[in-house]
């Protein structure tokens, strides 16, 4: 069963990434010269990511827990380093420019050490109070530089992941409720202070009241989805998304792909993202290490939640947040880091099997 789950995760991740290549190709085909430029780049990143996932899955699980502190410290420094060496795109200082066309977004790569650090703290032999303190300290150490970029979408995913890891890791209900209350109060304050947030909420609640301004993005999402119908455009080429939808490659990737492929394949994408944590549960069931167990669950859960939030935004179920769709949105950093994260998940499950075999042999 574990091998089946291993294979299921591997195949689901690769299939979703290939669907992403199709989405990027569709969106860019009508306005790029050469027309395959973005699609080909995305395919190359998919290939590199799939290879990275395969090789990382071969790393023994014992290494991950040992390496976590060094890995976390080294990668954390890339976040504040952005303020010295990073570049600003769309009013966000979130990338290092390697060349004029290759940019790296560290906040995508730091998701893995962030989860590993939190899990390591929960699985440590410290007292509950110490664990909680370390847990909160790590969470805030990671999200503050991300909030200062400012990348509130990614920050909210980090926060949500931290809360879920804490809760699944048998954290106290009371502390979780307290944490949620604090976040709720902060959200209310931000709503009161930021006209941009207020506009987004008003545009979400009544898009037709100001269709040219606050309701524009919401209406473009709905119109793009409407163009999809049951099976999308016959030629798999999108028309509306490249012309009207803001950021069709990244923050609006799901709506773009629905325009190209339609409702039925869209359902499979939603199911795919829901099934990843289900497969992870199966993968985790035979492991014995608490670190491996919690990591195998936490990483897929983080990406599933990010995907469902993105899909909820694109289907206008919740107000607009700038979150990309893992594996499908355009961008090498996001794609490769997601593959690496699933490589870590597979590595932890593989090595546990070896350990179990060793244990059985010794018995």
């Amino acid at each position: 069963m574990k091998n089946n789950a291993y294979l299921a995760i591997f195949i689901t991740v690769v299939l979703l990434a290939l669907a992403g290549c199709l989405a990027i190709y569709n969106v860019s085909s009508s306005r790029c010269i050469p027309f395959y430029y973005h699609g080909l780049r995305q395919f190359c990143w998919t290939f590199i990511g799939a290879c990275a996932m395969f090789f990382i899955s071969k790393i023994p699980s014992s290494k991950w827990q040992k390496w976590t502190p060094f890995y976390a410290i080294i990668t954390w420094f890339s976040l504040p380093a952005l303020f010295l060496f990073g570049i600003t795109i769309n009013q966000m200082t979130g990338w290092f420019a390697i060349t004029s066309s290759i940019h790296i977004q560290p906040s995508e790569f730091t998701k893995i050490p962030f989860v590993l650090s939190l899990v390591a703290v929960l699985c440590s032999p410290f007292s509950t109070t110490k664990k909680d303190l370390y847990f909160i300290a790590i969470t805030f150490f990671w999200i503050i530089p991300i909030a200062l970029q400012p990348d509130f979408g990614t920050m909210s995913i980090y926060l949500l992941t931290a809360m879920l890891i804490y809760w699944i890791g048998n954290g106290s209900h009371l502390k979780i409720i307290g944490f949620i209350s604090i976040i709720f109060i902060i959200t209310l304050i931000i709503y009161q202070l930021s006209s941009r947030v207020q506009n987004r909420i008003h545009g979400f609640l009544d898009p037709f009241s100001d269709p040219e301004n606050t309701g524009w993005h919401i209406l473009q999402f709905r119109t793009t989805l409407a163009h999809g119908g049951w099976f999308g455009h016959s030629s798999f080429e999108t028309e509306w998304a490249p012309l009207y939808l803001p950021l069709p490659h990244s923050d609006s990737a799901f709506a773009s792909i629905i325009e190209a492929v339609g409702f039925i394949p869209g359902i499979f994408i939603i199911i795919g993202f829901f099934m990843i944590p289900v497969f992870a549960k199966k993968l985790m069931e035979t492991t014995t290490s608490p670190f491996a167990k919690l990591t195998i669950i936490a990483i897929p859960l983080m990406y599933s939640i990010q995907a469902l939030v993105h899909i909820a935004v694109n289907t206008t179920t919740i107000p607009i947040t700038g979150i990309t769709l893992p594996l499908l949105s355009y961008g090498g950093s996001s794609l490769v880091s997601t593959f690496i994260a699933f490589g870590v998940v597979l590595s932890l499950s593989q090595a546990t099997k070896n350990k179990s075999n060793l244990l059985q042999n010794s018995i």
Partner: protein
Amino acid sequence: MISHIENSFSSKRFFIILCILATISVVLCFQLYRYTILERDHFLQYANQIIWREGIIPSPRGSIYDCNNICLVWSVRTHSFILNQNPQKKHIAQIIKKCETILGPISPLPINEHFWILRDQLSPSELAWIQSEIISSSSQFFSIQSQMSRCYISNHPNFRHFIGEVDVTIHGSQLGISGIEKKFNSHLTGTNGIYRVKVNYKQDFVPGSWTDVQKLKPGNSLKLKYSLQEIIENPTLLNSVES
């Protein structure tokens, strides 16, 4: 240590999270169904309203010739450089200063409270420079508007009285309001073209989407039975002309 290991993961809580994710997935599937299938027609209708633009291409008015085939009156297309922001604003003033290095001194002429003419009757080289240096980077503030203008071979009062005047309609075509221009208005006026084109969110035309709803037909030329000399010398000639 064993109890610590057992306590570090809660299957029950994970199951609850899976149930929540399943519920969210069902809601998202329904929302997807709603916009792709249930309310599809409504949003496609809305899409048609915002993607298609119809416009009029004013027909060029016919020329007027004298009995010796000398062209007395003709129409040419001219281009004006238009601003839609207050020219006193700092960043706009800087751009205008840049324009003055090529176009010479500019004194903005207000059309109404939103638009100013910076320069009319642009030469082809001026037009090309403005397109590449100004419109490409600041199209939200500056634009080029083209219109048909009537040109006359002479400005002699008798000649201008005889030929008459034209007015520009809201569609940009010319309408004769006096003199020969008025008497032979229907002959000189052509049929405006009507086009339909897709536009993107910036209102730029989408390549390949242009269709002609109505073909443009230029106005007919008019040949008078008088010479230019006769028109200039005889101030009452207009009364003897029958349309």
